[in-house]
């Protein structure tokens, strides 16, 4: 990559030419810009709206945890283990990352707001919690990470309703959290200080030919020529790529709309660590993350939707408020809400990231990180910077963006997973069944739904539980899924028979 100074349009101060244009000013885009500036690869322009309204990063809880997120699926297949180890490697990069950002922090509050986590196992989330809790302990041992079982009552700040109290709790002394919004602000300050150009705009389309991408066009028609365009625009990435490369083989990305809230504690003992349940019920589990200054972040919901928005569903507000009070601290009821956080996680059809060069020269894709984007951003930035410079990457090539969907389960396994997640959601939300109806019968109901969904979709690729749920309730989403799977059907049939997983 040849180093040049950016060129500017006369009188506007806006660049017309840059070595690299990064579309997206979330954690992935900013950390990549930071890495490229550090390596002095040339001029770097980052384009993205400063409000980041629909982005995942600005709404993130930003837990620096990979083991706290462990599920039974995390290490079951080679592909899932590869992704899991991305998080393990990323974790090691955060101490140095935070040290470098410290001088650019927007306030005196430390960017790292917690240095440890407590994972609780309560009886609200059904069997899924139990098996994921066990999987977490197994993973901690496999990777020789420290943990200790403690009495739930000993967790600072933890004060649930009696009926929702935890039965077990584990202390993870090395998994904390950062202030996501503070980290983004620090990165912006650092980038400006070091000569990067941050444009508070959005990109309308990519410009190029059938062979290459040469520029981006902003919403107001302004063009910026680029040696390389990196699309790191989260859930917007797919539609942006399709403005210049609209092929049916491009894997769909769905908005995983999530809701969280930042509240000011008004009484009681504050939380001093991340306190969370295991991942459960199609989502990332209930959690509280200290934010500093008497603030606490409560999250988070996950709902795959058709339309990207920054809206919040009333059902999600109810869900989060009620269960934070019941399962974390009953004093939450009198907390003062300071900020509503709503963002869209980029969820690929197979649940794995899309990171790599596209078939068009000069176009690189970096998205699909679902819940791991913030945590993995420093590591992915190093990897992508290497690839942009023509060096070897540091992550597995499994995540190439034009791959066939990664297969990690059979259809039968997928249906079982769906049943477990549905039951978890059923019990956590306090749904009522007739007294004579057993859990097994409830499971049969969900199983029949899932079987029928596969029949209607004509799918032989095994979907994750969140995607399967989405397909059942959204005609547009189901159509996207069905058409994409038909496009790649031949390769997937082979993959579904594998028990070890892999890219196909």
């Amino acid at each position, binding site marked *: 990559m040849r180093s040049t100074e950016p060129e500017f349009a006369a009188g506007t101060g806006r660049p017309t030419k840059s070595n690299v244009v990064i579309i997206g000013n979330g954690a992935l885009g900013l950390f990549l810009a930071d890495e490229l500036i550090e390596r002095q690869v040339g001029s770097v322009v980052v384009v993205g709206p400063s409000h980041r309204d629909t982005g995942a990063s600005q709404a993130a809880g930003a837990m620096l945890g990979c083991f706290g997120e462990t599920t039974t699926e995390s290490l079951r297949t080679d592909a899932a283990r590869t992704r899991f180890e991305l998080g393990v490697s990323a974790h090691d990069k955060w101490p140095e990352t935070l040290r470098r950002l410290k001088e650019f922090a927007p306030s005196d509050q430390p960017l790292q707001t917690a240095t440890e986590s407590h994972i609780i196992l309560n009886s609200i989330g059904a069997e899924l919690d139990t098996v994921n809790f066990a999987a977490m302990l197994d993973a901690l041992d496999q990777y020789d990470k420290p943990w200790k079982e403690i009495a739930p009552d000993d967790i600072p700040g933890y004060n649930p309703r009696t009926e929702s109290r935890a039965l077990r709790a584990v202390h993870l002394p090395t998994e904390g959290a950062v202030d996501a919004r503070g980290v983004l602000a620090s990165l912006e300050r650092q980038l400006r200080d070091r000569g990067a150009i941050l444009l508070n705009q959005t990109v309308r389309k990519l410009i190029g030919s059938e062979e290459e991408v040469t520029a981006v066009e902003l919403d107001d028609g302004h063009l910026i020529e680029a040696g390389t365009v990196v699309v790191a625009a989260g859930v917007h990435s797919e539609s942006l790529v399709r403005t210049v490369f609209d092929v049916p083989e491009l894997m769909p990305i769905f908005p995983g709309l999530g809701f969280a809230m930042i509240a000011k504690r008004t009484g009681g003992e504050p939380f001093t660590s991340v306190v969370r349940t295991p991942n459960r019920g199609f989502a990332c589990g209930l959690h509280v993350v200290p934010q500093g200054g008497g603030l606490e972040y409560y999250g988070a919901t996950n709902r795959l939707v058709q339309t990207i928005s920054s809206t919040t569903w009333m059902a999600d507000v109810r869900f989060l408020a009620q269960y934070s009070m019941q399962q974390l601290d009953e004093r939450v009821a009198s907390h003062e809400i300071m900020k509503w956080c709503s963002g869209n996680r980029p969820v690929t059809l197979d649940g794995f990231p899309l990171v790599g060069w596209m078939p068009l020269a000069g176009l690189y894709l970096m998205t699909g990180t679902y819940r791991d984007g913030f945590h993995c951003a420093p590591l992915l930035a190093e990897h992508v910077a290497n690839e942009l410079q023509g060096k070897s990457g540091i992550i597995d090539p499994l995540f190439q963006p034009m791959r066939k969907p990664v297969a990690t389960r059979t259809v039968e396994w997928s249906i079982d997973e769906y049943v477990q997640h549905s039951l978890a959601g059923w019990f956590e939300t306090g749904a009522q069944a007739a007294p004579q109806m057993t859990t097994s019968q409830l499971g049969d109901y969900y199983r029949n*739904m899932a079987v*029928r*969904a596969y*029949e*209607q*979709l*004509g799918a032989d690729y095994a979907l994750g539980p969140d995607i399967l749920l989405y*397909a*059942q*309730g959204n*005609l*547009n989403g*189901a*159509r996207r899924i*069905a058409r994409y799977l038909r496009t790649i059907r031949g390769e997937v049939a082979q993959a579904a028979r594998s028990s070890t997983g892999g890219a196909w």
Partner: protein
Amino acid sequence: MAVSQPSVADTVRRLVAVQLNLNGSGHELRSDEDLWRLGMTSLTCLGLMLSIEDTLQIEFPEEALQDSTFRCINTISAAVNSSLKQVPRIAGEKRLQPRS
């Protein structure tokens, strides 16, 4: 002798009957009969939508993908006819011409 093509409504009726298991039931499906009241679920609606698009080689516009479109044979046929006026789903594909 020319073979007459089935109308859009006939094709929709046939596909509805398959999805709702009405064949052999003796039920005479009226064109304005509410399919949701006949037991259509979100999943049968999904299958119906895909089968209509596949059979008639059309693509419903996104705004048509809602429960009200699939309320009855008349509403579905109207959405299909509207889609038939759009560009065919597959380039070069022959359009199916609805009978009036």
